[in-house]
């Protein structure tokens, strides 16, 4: 089916397959349609159907709050076409970077499956072709028995790979999360679409990095650390990471973080904040290079932010409420220019 989006300067056209989400069809065709979560919760991919018939998909999607039925407002990430359609999109259609990577559909196989803590799993998905993604990007994943895509950032970084590494937190009420925790899913198949997301790291930008993560939000930041490590970025550039989890038992990726610190002891600072318990005596007396703290991660991170930002790029990654709680003080108190803050919010 042919989808048309008319703007004054040009008309965009793309083909959408039966049942394919309009957002994914457009992005796949190289049209930089607006989106953030790509999974129905944020509302960024709003469009109005001016002609044609659509299947709206998830009718209670949180992103549809205040959408107007009379204007035929839809979420492109949930909606598929039932005929040729014309849409109007209430924002500018503009590429984020010149080296944006066109996302596509893949079928992958889970090849590694490992519990990192009581409620965090790490798994690898192998896809049939090698692809590239920017450090910090995510894919949306859908399990065969579960309807609906969910977004997960890649943990790994490799320019050209068929391996995508993810972590996922247990959510008994979640779709994919419940499915993957129910039993060892090695060798099971997943549908994937990506890469997606703009909270990315690009060495040519030459910033110091200030990164704040809560829980499984650490995933995309691990990818950024890995890329920076591979290209020796931290030889000349500083990075401060604040990683918040509930208790010492919830802390994962300790070995990987210690390895980054050991490779660049003078420029890398890694702070682990436990919200619900003090660090262990072993952690406090260890010489592993990591700094262990008690308290909410933002309470420790915000005082360490340099007022005015300097030449620093700030990355926020974690639950939506954590990201929201950080943006306000960063802009109002620390006076960080808004172009020096990057985040993708998809929980």
């Amino acid at each position: 089916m042919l989808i048309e989006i008319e703007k004054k300067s040009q008309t965009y056209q793309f083909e959408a397959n039966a049942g394919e989400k309009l957002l994914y069809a457009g992005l796949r065709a190289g049209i930089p349609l607006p989106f953030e979560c790509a999974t129905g919760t944020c509302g960024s991919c709003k469009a109005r159907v001016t002609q044609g018939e659509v299947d709206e998909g998830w009718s209670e999607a949180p992103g549809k709050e205040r959408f107007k039925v009379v204007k035929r407002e839809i979420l492109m990430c949930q909606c598929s076409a039932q005929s040729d359609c014309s849409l109007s999109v209430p924002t500018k259609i503009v590429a984020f970077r010149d080296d944006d990577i066109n996302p596509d559909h893949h079928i992958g196989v889970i090849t590694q499956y490992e519990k990192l803590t009581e409620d965090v799993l790490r798994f690898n998905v192998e896809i049939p072709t090698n692809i590239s993604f920017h450090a910090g990007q995510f894919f949306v994943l859908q399990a065969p028995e579960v309807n609906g895509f969910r977004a997960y950032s890649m943990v790994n970084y490799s320019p050209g790979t068929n391996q995508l590494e993810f972590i996922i937190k247990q959510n008994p009420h979640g779709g994919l999360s419940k499915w993957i925790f129910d039993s060892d899913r090695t060798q099971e198949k997943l549908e994937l679409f990506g890469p997606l997301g703009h909270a990315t790291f690009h060495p040519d930008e030459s910033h110091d990095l200030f990164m704040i993560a809560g829980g499984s939000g650490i995933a995309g930041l691990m990818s950024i650390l890995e890329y920076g490590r591979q290209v020796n970025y931290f030889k000349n550039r500083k990075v401060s990471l604040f990683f918040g989890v509930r208790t010492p038992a919830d802390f994962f990726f300790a070995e990987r973080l210690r390895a980054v610190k050991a490779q660049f002891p003078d420029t890398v600072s890694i702070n682990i904040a436990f919200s619900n318990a003090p660090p262990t005596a072993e952690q406090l007396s260890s010489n592993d290079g990591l700094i262990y703290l008690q308290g909410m991660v933002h309470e420790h991170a915000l005082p360490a932010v340099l007022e005015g930002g300097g030449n620093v790029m700030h990355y926020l990654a974690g639950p939506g409420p954590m990201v929201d709680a950080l943006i306000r003080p960063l802009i109002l108190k620390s006076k960080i220019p808004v172009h020096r803050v990057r985040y993708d919010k998809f929980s």
Partner: protein
Amino acid sequence: MSWKAACPVSDVKQDTLKECTIDGIEILLANVGDGFRAYPPVCPHMEQYLEGSGICANNVMTCDRHLWQWDMKTGEPLGPAEKPLLIYQTKEVNGQLMVFLDKELEYDFDDDDD
């Protein structure tokens, strides 16, 4: 259309945003210290409703979605914002905030060239 009463001026506190609907038109009200402003309710970037996502301080509004910012008095864009806020005329009469509603102000999203 003409001057319409929005709400008592005391309902619109500085550094906050208040939405109201007049004759079916949604309006966002703000107090800029020495007066009031009335805007369309959404961000001119991606139609995010600003009553929930607008952060106000020192007469600068920031949309927490993609961090577009404006001078609240003039509506002029600051920082990464690419479009101004549209502004309705307002006045105060007997403690009521009045908005001049000639027609609904709406952002033009069809031009990709600017």
